[in-house]
């Protein structure tokens, strides 16, 4: 399956501190995420998963190597341009604090419309997405009125609403039961395969393995790749 690489990480190294306190967190990482593929980054706590995600998402720069998103090298962009690139190209699904507590579910999407007025999902597509995630009836509720799982599903919908080409998810199934994991895993797989998004999920949830096209294991800052489904 030859697809366009939406995210490329070339020879990425990340070193924190210096001298005796020097920590080499990522070692010569080469990674690419193509449109239509679901990539799983598996690894234990402290393996460098979060650093990998923040560099992939342009939240911090690598010590060396380069990150290319939708053909643009992040090193060549200003902080403002990187913000803009994240806003338009990347949908972040994070572990917590995804939703503003004083906005109801409907307003979480209205907020996106105010920041990025164009190229968001149509009303019909949003409705379909909310139905798929089984949260259509929660539209008037505030985050405090939702369970952990419902909050996470709303956060997924919120991240997908701007119609990003790349989806970066940090432990998206942490708060979900097995049935919901199945549902969310299938949703991410559909987004990759049907909507041609590049989906990268950083997780230690092995239940997501069956949805992956490519599994990468990260250990002590080294990335090993396994192609599951090509």
């Amino acid at each position, binding site marked *: 399956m030859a697809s366009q690489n939406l995210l490329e990480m070339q020879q990425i190294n990340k070193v924190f501190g210096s001298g005796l306190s020097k920590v080499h967190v990522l070692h010569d990482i080469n990674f690419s995420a193509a449109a239509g593929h679901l990539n799983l980054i598996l690894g234990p*706590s402290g393996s460098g*998963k*979060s650093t990998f*995600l*923040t560099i992939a*998402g342009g*939240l*911090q720069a690598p010590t060396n190597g380069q990150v290319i998103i939708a053909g643009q090298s992040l090193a060549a962009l200003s902080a*403002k341009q990187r*913000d*803009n*690139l*994240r*806003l*338009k190209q*990347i*949908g*972040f699904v*994070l*572990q*917590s*604090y*995804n*939703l*503003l*507590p*004083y*906005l109801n579910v409907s*307003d979480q999407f*209205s*907020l996106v419309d*105010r*920041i990025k007025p164009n190229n968001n999902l149509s009303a019909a597509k949003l409705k379909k997405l909310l139905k798929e995630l089984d949260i259509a009836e929660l539209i008037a509720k*505030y985050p405090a009125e939702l369970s952990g799982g419902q909050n996470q599903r709303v956060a997924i919908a919120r*991240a997908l609403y701007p119609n990003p080409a790349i989806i970066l998810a*940090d*432990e998206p199934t942490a708060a979900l039961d097995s049935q919901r994991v199945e549902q969310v895993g299938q949703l991410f797989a559909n987004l990759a395969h049907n909507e041609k998004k590049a989906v990268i999920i*950083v997780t230690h949830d092995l239940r997501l393995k069956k949805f992956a096209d490519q599994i990468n294991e990260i250990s002590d800052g080294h990335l090993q790749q396994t192609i599951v489904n090509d």
Partner: protein
Amino acid sequence: MFLALKEIKHEKLRYGLIIGMIMLISYLVFVLTGLSQGLAQQNTAAIKSWNAKQIVLNKNANVNLTQSLITQKASQQLKLTATEAYVGQASVVAKKSGLAKESAQFIGLESNQFIAQHLQLTSGHWAKNQQQLVVNQSFKTAGYKLGDHLKLNSSKTNYQIVGFTKNATLSIAPVIYGQLATWQQLKNLNNSFKTSAIVSQKANYQTSASDLKAYPIKTFINKLPGYSAQNLTFTFMIAFLMVISLIVIAVFLYILTIQKIQNYAVLRAQGVPAQFLIRATLAQAFLLVLVGIIIAAGLTVLTSLIIPAGTPMTFNLPLLSGIAGGLILMALFGALIPIWTITKIDPITAIGG
């Protein structure tokens, strides 16, 4: 504005308390401004009603009308035209049986000079002889009527109120206008003394008489006993309250921003520009202070309707609008600390694990 409105609407108690605090400070600022204006007006209303630009006093009087006496001889060295007038001042106590004594400022005028000529009467007529008086409207509130007779100080003379005028107060006391000859009587002066002062409507009016000196009216007003000290006190109180309002807004918004940092970090990670969050914070500060000011303005209007008539309070709309504008600016200034916090948010903190 969207985020600001939604948050205020959702956190009604939290923001209600902040608005309440701002409202109380704004109300206090408005009332103090009203008092400051009222007292300043009662110090100077009579002088301002004359539209004079210069005042000539005895040069040894320390720019004080009460201390100034101008002799006949010195006054003859001055050229008086239609824009100059004699002013004879005496502190008096007005008495009428059955009514409370009224401390007042007597101002003696020449009937043919501009002050007496242009005096705005609300009823009655100008004093036609030495026993007739025109008094400030506040005498009406105290129970005096047109035609009433009263005594001034220990004088045996019966004076009659023949007219009422408004805005006639000097040094926080109502003014009683009468003829210049009445002033001489009240001060027990002989004919060698002509007046306390000469006022002129010309800004460049000067005197060459060695005993006299001409001062701009503004200088004279600032030298009124206690006037500058009183204004300065109020100015400081109002300035301190404005600084307090700045601190209140800064502290509240800072605490609220700190509580939202994780949410803001996620939004920043998702590419939401810091400017969007800064605008929301500014809009929130603006809305909070605006609502506080509107409620305070309503309370101030209510206060102006129910305060006793004698309370020296004047509500000057342009000045109060300026103060309200100042409070809004202070609030926006107070939002700078939370804004600085927002600019320092690192989106990396949004990624856990």
